[in-house]
């Protein structure tokens, strides 16, 4: 798993988290920590770029679900950017796609916070 955080928005109020590779039992903790670190910086507007994600286990899905809830509770949003076909199907299966917005375009995703 590769994971990186950058800031976007007029005053850097949006965190763009790019995760790629495999989120499984070995990497899922690091995935969770990375997101928690963003929250710890008092940032609750998150774009989760999963373009390069090839696998995510249920624990990883739980982290996304929890992050979505926590962001919403703190008047922020979690949006997903670019899900591959297999991951997209998985998000459908667990019905995340009914709740979390998925964007294909990064600018559009970032602009959606305004």
């Amino acid at each position, binding site marked *: 798993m590769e994971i990186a955080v950058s800031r976007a928005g007029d005053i850097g109020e949006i965190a763009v988290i790019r995760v790629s590779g495999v989120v*499984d039992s070995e990497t899922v903790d690091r995935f969770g920590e990375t997101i928690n670190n963003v929250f710890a910086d008092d940032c609750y507007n998150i774009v989760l770029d999963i373009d390069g994600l090839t696998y995510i286990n*249920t624990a990883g899905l739980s982290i996304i679900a929890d992050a979505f*809830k926590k962001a919403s509770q703190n008047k922020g949003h979690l949006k997903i950017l670019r899900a591959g076909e*297999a991951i997209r199907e998985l998000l459908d299966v667990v019905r995340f796609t009914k709740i979390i917005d998925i964007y294909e375009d990064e600018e559009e995703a970032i602009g959606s916070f305004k």
Partner: protein
Amino acid sequence: MSGERAEKPDNFSGSTAGLPVNGEFRRAGHVLDGSLDLDLRLNRVVEQAIELLSADRGSIMLLDKTGGELCVRASRGLKEPAEFSVRLGEGISGWVAKQGTPLVLNDAVAEERFKGINSNIVSALAVPLRVEGRVIGVLNVSSSSKGRYYDHVDLEYLSSFADMAAAAIENAQLYQALRRDQEHLSKELRMASRIQRSIVSTQMPCASIHMVSRLMPASAVGGDFFSVVPLSRDSRFCFYCSSQTQDRCQNLRSQSCPDKFGIMIGDVANKGMPAALIMSVLTTILYQAGQHLSSPRSILNEANAAFRRFFSESQYGFATLFYGFYDNTDNSLTYTKAGHEPPLLVHKRIGEIEYLEGEGFPVGLMEDGCYQEKTVKLERGDRILLYTDGVTGALNDRGEILGRKRLVELVKAHADQDIEAFLDALGDEVMLFSGDAPQPDDIAVMVLELEDLYDLTMTVGTDVKQIRYVIDSVLETLQGFEGLKDPITLRLCLEELLHNAMEHGNRGDVSKKVYITVKAGPRRVVIRVRDEGEGFDPEQIGSPQIGEPTLSERGRGLLIVRYYADELSFNREGNEATLVFSAG
């Protein structure tokens, strides 16, 4: 055409100028021989009659089926529509047909009976077409040429030709009727053939058994048959499983037992439709018996009794049969043979061929069939060739039979090919042997192979760090399995089950273990994950309602597994989950 009739024209030599000579008449007869097509023949008769009599027009009217009406069936030069018809006794033709007497008409317009017909006609001849004294129609020719009057010699001449023509027409009519009947019959046979093929079942419930088969009746339908008999997984009828297996079976979604099935091949004495009828009854008996009897021997006893009850009056008094139960759990085949050709068991590892022999009379022959039961074990790659005597009894053009010895040689020669190619090759060899000799008997062949299975058994401690290692090992084992369109599928399911086993089953107790077994054939993967926990009641695990948007973690794992796996079931104790993935 008979020589006698061809001679008749001799009487006419020296008659009216312009009449054809003997050779011409004979040729006319030959022309009629050409085709059995009725319309073509009728047209030729008219053409020949016109030519012979130097006429301008001609027609043939045939009596319809009721014999009450004459219809124009072929004509030349007529102005009337082709479907022109008259009632028997009406008009010239009707009169000729009714009286059976030929007519010469000169200055025809004046003739009272010539009502409504072309006023240009100067002279006409109308002769009955007779077969064995019975009138089948009328042949008419007429001329408009001034001064061309037909006389009684012409009439005799045309009558003689009409005798020949009538026989030719009758032949064509009979042929047409025969062909219609035959088409009807062959349509029925084609349907019967389709029905018979639908009786034969080749659905194989067992993942590790690959089966191919061919059914080639000598005619459209036949008395040879084979079938795979699925054994019901309903515990009321399932005598084959331990109670524990039954329990698991019922949690699975498919209806037939995935571990066991019946297999049969048989040959009803005689061929064609009678054999096919008996075959269909016998197949039904064997199917039914498979649902409530627990051994091949008892099934053949029942089939024997039923056969004798149903067909005691029949001259087709018996059938040879081979019936076996295959058990996937220990790769054994328990069988009973009723006078059937012994199937060949090809042992791959030791390269030997074993005849599956066994005592027993053909079904229907004796009150007590004296059936024996035997069991053989299969190893991976072993094949069983089941066949009927149409194979070993195949004849070549020198009248030699293929025989069992030659069959064994052929089997050995092609044993290295995969079973599809193996069966094709056997079929080709039998055809090659027979050459142009017609297939004398029905042929049924089926080949079963216990396929190479991927097999993996792993035991790991309760440590989530082991999960990736287990998954990688399984994925490596299953490389190339076509059922896994996307490894994410299996990975998700397996990870979920391993997590459950460790977290919920063993409750994180590091002293407890998790057992994983993977069995995979080319088209089916079965994965079992067992833990050492106290188990749970699968019924108690709720899943989110269908379509309900949720971020709740509860049941998400099972939701995923149920979505991606083809089957998911738990044992009674709730500490073993079975996942099944099927290709296609």
